[in-house]
């Protein structure tokens, strides 16, 4: 065991922190208002190599290990959970291609996703489905060398950018469950207006409509009928990102509380002198420290899967579920504690905690509600 960051890890963490502070932070208000990630941020992420961080150098990736991705994502999400979410889904979509794609598919997409020219999406959820694939209503129907996709996907991130979308469908002929790669904005692809939501502005979510979308049958991802394996592992990889976003939120809540406590005067002395405030700072710190090692460790576990052939992913999937639920629930608690340090001022748009608080509440609800994650873990140890 070694809890010290390596030189490389320190550099990545530092680069991400500086980028977040110098580039993202000044654009914060704009991100909140426009509800999208500004071009210069995407460019910056690409330039720093973050958009391809864990992937093969052959594709222009950094081969840097997922703990580095966690370090970068944490620092970015500290400043903007919206940017973090767009980044996270970008990586998650790429993960799935890197894990399950043929060499051809990877060569076709990954060099461009690593450069940020294409931005992947991951489309499972539908209006009528929760986490159960048997409820899927989107169908893929074989038509010669093509498959024809029809249906609606809900709450899809990055759906408004060019790039590959991994779409989970029911095969009309076999009743099986498969994943296909669809190029966004192809014929028959269209979007709803984005959903209005409480937070994570910058990463709008859409309903996506597929009307007779035709893709080559070779766009099948992985084996036919094995969509469930892709879904489970893809979601588990996605949880690396959502956990790191939550961790960034906890860090932000903690740092903002410390900053405010030092600055804000009450009867002539900083509120940092009051024990009630100190206790909250202590609790916030414990929340941060207890969560961070779980998140970093989850990153290192992913390194044992990507590129090593996908064998026995169950333990990784279970731990991803555990970490995600813990981190996201803790983020909500941390935001609340920090808000309590800020009191009335925290409710105004003058301080970032207002945004941090709105952003945090989302985390337990997405990519699997927290209770479901705990049940996944429990089944892994109880069976």
């Amino acid at each position, binding site marked *: 065991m070694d809890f010290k960051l390596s030189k490389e890890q320190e550099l990545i963490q530092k680069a991400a922190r500086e980028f977040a502070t110098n580039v993202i932070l000044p654009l914060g208000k704009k991100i909140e208002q426009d509800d999208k990630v500004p071009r210069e941020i995407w460019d910056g992420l690409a330039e720093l190599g973050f958009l391809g961080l864990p992937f093969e150098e052959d594709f222009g990736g950094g081969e840097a290990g997922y703990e580095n991705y966690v370090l970068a994502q944490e620092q970015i999400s500290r400043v903007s959970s919206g940017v973090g979410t767009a980044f996270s889904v970008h990586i998650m979509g790429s993960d799935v291609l890197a894990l399950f794609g043929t060499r051809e598919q990877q060569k076709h997409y990954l060099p461009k996703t690593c450069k940020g020219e294409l931005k992947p999406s991951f489309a499972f*959820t539908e209006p*009528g*489905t*929760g986490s*159960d694939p*048997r*409820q899927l209503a989107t169908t893929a129907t074989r038509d010669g060398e093509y498959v024809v996709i029809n249906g609606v996907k809900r*709450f899809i991130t990055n759906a408004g950018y060019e790039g590959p979308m991994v779409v989970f469908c029911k095969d009309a002929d076999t009743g099986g469950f498969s994943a296909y790669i669809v190029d966004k904005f192809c014929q028959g692809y269209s979007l709803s207006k984005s*959903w*209005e*939501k*409480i*937070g994570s502005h910058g990463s709008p979510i859409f309903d996506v409509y597929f009307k007779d979308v035709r893709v080559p049958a070779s766009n099948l991802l992985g084996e036919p009928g094995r969509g469930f394996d892709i879904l489970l592992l893809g979601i588990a990889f996605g949880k690396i990102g959502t956990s790191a976003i939550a961790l960034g939120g906890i860090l932000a809540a903690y740092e903002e509380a410390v900053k405010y406590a030092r600055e804000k*005067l*009450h*009867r002539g002395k900083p509120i940092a002198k009051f024990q*009630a*405030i100190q206790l909250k700072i202590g609790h916030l710190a414990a929340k941060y420290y207890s969560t961070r090692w779980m998140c970093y460790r989850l990153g290192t576990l992913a390194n044992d899967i990507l590129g090593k052939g996908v064998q026995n992913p169950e333990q990784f999937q279970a731990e991803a579920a555990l970490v995600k639920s813990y981190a996201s629930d803790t983020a*909500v608690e941390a935001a*609340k504690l920090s*808000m*309590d340090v800020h*009191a*009335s001022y*925290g*409710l*105004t*748009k003058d301080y970032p905690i*207002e945004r941090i*608080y*709105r952003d945090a*509440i*989302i985390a*337990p*609800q*997405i990519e699997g*509600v*927290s*209770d479901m994650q705990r*049940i996944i873990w429990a089944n892994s140890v109880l069976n």
Partner: protein
Amino acid sequence: MDFNYTKEQLMLKDSVRKFSENEIAPMIKWMETEKRTPRDLIKKIKDLGWCGIQYPEKYGGSGNTYVEYAIMQMEMSRVYCSTACTISVNGMLGANIMKFATEEQKLKFLPEHLNGEGIGSFAFTEPSTGSDPGALRTTCVRDGDEWVINGEKNFITNASMPGLMGIFCKDAEMGPGKCTNILIPKGIKGYSTPRIYDKMGMHGLEVCDVVLDNVRVPYENTTGGEAMRGKGFQVLLGSTQIGKLSVCAQAVGMAQAALEAAVKYSKERVQRGKPIANFPTIQSLIGDMATDVMVGHQIVLATAFKASEGKELAADAARTRLFTSEACHRVASKAMQVMGAYSYTTEFPIERIFRDAKLTEIYEGVNEIQRLISSTDLLR
């Protein structure tokens, strides 16, 4: 002991519910977008007499108690907390007048304050005061038959709307640390609200900074007259009771709304062929929420009853506030768990409730202060 609602109380509850659903609910989208309080909505509420529930009839009130007041606040907050809060701030000023003003002032101000066009404000907080009256910088200086008021107030609710304001000023003539409460008509010469806050929630509530630049009002506007001059701190404490009780009722009202939203969703939302209401994890969440709502409802009524009996209430009110505000937060969070990703879209009321609810843990004194107050009667 008798824990039953009377027939009149049930009728009131029912009227407020119907009004809130029929008159307030349709305005919510507008209020959330425009971040303004519709003046005519407030007028309608005043016309129904709900600003005067807990006041004697001779001052224009309806002669009921805080129990009825709490019932009204709970029901209104169930639909939209901002509006209930607009009303409750009016009530805080009213409580001060009722408790400290001279009989002449009561007869002069209360009927209009409870039934007229405007809506009241309560102006204590300044950039550096916190809850310490000794730190006030807004000054009042007597000039013959008039007060001259100068200074700046922060976070003042309803300040951008017409009506009466009770303002706390440093009164140097009375000695160091002394403050005096003065009634001023908002919008008078020298009065301005340069900033309405952009905030996380409670969008139907107008909260402002107020600048007072040589504002002149008659000297006789001193709340309570000459006898109360320099005793502003007493006046400040006089309204905390209704202020805190209102927050508690609002918290319970919102929690009730969150519970109802989650129940409705769980019955409609189908997964694996059956409503999610059938899943034990969902039932368990709803069970916890229902507990907080039931307990909160009961404790608000008990505290309101005690308030009506005129009992010393500081510690009990702090406890009620602690419990109800934290319960509201728990219930809103759990409602989001029940509703999953849908809960954070604006299609459902729960994301608004979650944002609005946070205020109940903060205003009228943050919960940390409530914990200390809650211990006072035991540790003295």
